[in-house]
């Protein structure tokens, strides 16, 4: 959850080369090439399906939320509030981090999402060095965005203790800690090191005498519960505060910046919707938000039910779809992502590989370029694609496409370069045209290597496609993301096991395709 506040900043994207479509093969064709052709057909069909899937039937307001529970609950609150006011709304849940959501709302991919003033000031707009939250509306207006009124709570830093320990020492505020240097203080590792973390806090409150330890945030609550430490740092709306009945020390010198919850909205949002959302102002305080988080994280309620509770509504008997139906749905989503990306990669990478093998100069350009793409961290690539392609399936497919290029290009190149000179010359000596030579001799001879490259690309794509869930592409990443958020291993496995199974299945399928497409004369003798 802590990490949700930090995300890589986008870098400009090297544009992928113009998509060159290879000319259709004439009728008589080696079996392997026929397979490639049918994959290309699959791609065309896939595009069609994807296009259909992405035609939005209505112009409903789109609420986005980040990939942590509080954000999803707030997103549900916004959706339900809008719908109750007669404004059609949809909620695209857990779309990764702040940067993804901010870019998405700027691009108009979502209309609003819950955010924190501190996150806006210190991360997203950190370059503007805003002096206070009061400067935010003007800074956002320059980006075509506006803020709702504060929802009523701040999800900032605080120091927490067990109430009986606080009572024993008579502690009410952080400044009281200075009188008890023997207290065992443990704060998140990142909080120890940050300049605005413990060191600054310690200076502000004169806590130099306290020896502070770094601790993993997930373990901190347990250590506090078990009495191994006396003071830990928390977020003010963490579910555990409510669950464990913890006491928060007052920040009496106002050291911690405010992380007031707000909605970031497009300026062009329907004024009626703005008014409805502003009606939420001041309705949820820290204690209420802790309770809502607790309902979901600890008691296992749905975010929708938590949101209804926040709005004073009855929980709905929301009978979710069965496990099989869920997995089937995600399998379709996942396969669609992989198939389209891989198919497009084939169409581009095979000609590129051939070009690289034909011309050493082109090869010296193409192979390092695809290699460079491979070195872009996947999350960064997804984020970089949002301004160009929005959120959802499109940027995910684009990223998978880019990652699939290298293994295919490289193996096409290697396969062609590995053909003995005597065979290439024999083809020339027969008088074959360059095209016939490529089609009848070189590609079939390189086929086992090419197929291995395609298989590698496919397996990588199946794995990477799980990250697509971070930007709303669905697939097996969805339950993995939810499971991580809720710390629920069964939910994680609901995505991880099918993903692994799919990777194995694709391996197996490719072995069969290879067996069918690689001519008997080239198969390993067994």
């Amino acid at each position, binding site marked *: 959850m802590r990490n949700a506040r930090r995300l890589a900043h986008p870098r400009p994207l090297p544009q992928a080369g113009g998509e060159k479509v290879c000319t259709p093969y004439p009728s008589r064709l080696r079996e392997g090439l026929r397979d490639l052709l049918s994959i290309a057909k699959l791609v065309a069909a896939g595009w069609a399906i994807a296009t259909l899937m992405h035609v939005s039937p209505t112009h409903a307001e789109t609420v986005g939320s980040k990939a942590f529970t509080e954000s999803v609950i707030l997103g549900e609150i916004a959706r339900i509030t809008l719908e109750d006011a007669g404004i059609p709304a949809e909620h695209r849940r857990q779309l990764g981090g702040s940067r993804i959501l901010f870019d998405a709302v700027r691009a108009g991919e979502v209309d609003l999402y819950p955010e924190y003033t501190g996150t806006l000031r210190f991360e997203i707009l950190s370059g503007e060095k805003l002096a206070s939250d009061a400067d935010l509306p003007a800074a956002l207006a320059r980006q075509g965005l506006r803020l709702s009124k504060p929802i009523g709570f701040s999800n900032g830093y605080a120091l927490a203790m067990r109430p009986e320990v606080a009572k024993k020492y008579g502690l009410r505020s952080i400044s009281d800690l200075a009188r008890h240097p023997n207290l065992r203080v443990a704060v998140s590792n990142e909080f120890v090191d940050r300049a605005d973390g413990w060191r600054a806090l310690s200076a502000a409150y004169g806590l130099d005498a306290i020896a502070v330890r770094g601790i993993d945030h997930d373990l901190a609550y347990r250590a506090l519960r078990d009495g191994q430490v006396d003071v830990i740092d928390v977020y003010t709306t963490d579910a555990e505060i409510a669950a464990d009945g913890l006491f928060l020390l007052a920040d009496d010198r106002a050291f911690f910046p405010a992380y007031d919850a707000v909605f970031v909205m497009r300026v062009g949002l329907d004024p009626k919707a703005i008014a409805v959302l502003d009606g939420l102002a001041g309705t949820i305080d820290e204690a209420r938000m802790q309770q809502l988080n607790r309902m979901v994280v600890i008691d296992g309620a749905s975010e929708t039910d938590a949101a209804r509770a926040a709005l004073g509504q009855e929980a709905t008997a929301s009978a979710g779809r069965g496990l099989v139906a869920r997995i089937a749905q995600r399998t379709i989503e996942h396969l669609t992502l992989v198939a389209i990306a891989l198919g497009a990669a084939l169409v581009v990478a095979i000609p590129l590989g051939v070009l690289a093998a034909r011309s050493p100069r082109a090869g010296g350009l193409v192979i390092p370029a695809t290699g460079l793409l491979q070195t872009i961290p996947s999350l960064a690539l997804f984020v970089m694609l949002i301004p160009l392609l929005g959120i959802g399936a499109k940027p995910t497919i684009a990223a998978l496409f880019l990652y699939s290029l290298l293994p295919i290009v490289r193996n096409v190149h290697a396969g062609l370069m590995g053909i003995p000179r005597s065979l290439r010359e*024999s083809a020339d*000596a027969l*008088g*074959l045209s360059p095209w016939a030579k490529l089609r*009848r001799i070189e590609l079939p*001879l390189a086929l086992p290597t090419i197929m291995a490259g395609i298989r590698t690309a496919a397996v990588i794509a199946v794995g990477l496609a799980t990250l697509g869930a971070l930007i709303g592409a669905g697939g097996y990443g969805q339950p993995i993301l939810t499971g991580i958020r809720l710390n629920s291993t069964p939910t994680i496995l609901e995505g991880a096991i099918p993903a692994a199974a799919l990777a194995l299945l694709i391996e197996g399928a490719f072995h069969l395709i290879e067996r069918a497409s690689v001519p008997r*004369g080239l198969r390993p003798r067994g």
Partner: protein
Amino acid sequence: MYRLEQVAVRYGAVEALAPTDLAIGAGDTLMLLGPSGSGKSTLLRCLIGLSPYTGTVSFRGEPVPDWRALRPQLGYVIQNGGLFPHLTARANVALMARELGWEKDRIVARMRELAALVALDADQLERFPRELSGGQRQRVAIMRALMLDPEVLLLDEPLSALDPVTRVRLASDMREIVAKLGKTVVMVTHALGEARFFGGETVLMRDGRIVQRGPIDDLAANPADDFVAEFIAAEEAL
């Protein structure tokens, strides 16, 4: 059939073939003989446009403008056959005819004719190259070279990779085929015995140059220089 004027081949600093003049008449059998690295294969490859040469190669009196267009009139066989491993023997042989759009019946008839000529049966033609013996592979390679009924047969050490028994059997079949077809044949060999066996004229090469040309027995009787005498003596000794 061929006229070479000042034809030379250079790979970087290495002169593989010094400027060479050579005429080959229609129906000639010409053996290119010489030790390793003497340029005999390079010269043969000039006759099918595989060596990057300077100078002029004329075919039937005309300098060759486009080798690819000419190649269907030239049959080429190399040491290990150069068969495509992903194609059956039959597909190897039929490849270029199919590419040129021959009727199926015509291909079948021509294949039958050639199979009889090189003594292969239908079953062997269904096999992949690796499922054939070395001698069978060379027979398939000869079929492939003859498929389009070329005027010229260019053979680059076609017997060198074979065991002695297979080699003798294939050599006598080849001599028969060559005699029967009456084609222009240029064959590279490093073995004097092969040159003598196939008859015709021999061109003896050394260090990228033609040293002497004539019937092999003339070369033996009247060597042009010490190298010719020594090469022939050494070959005769073993």
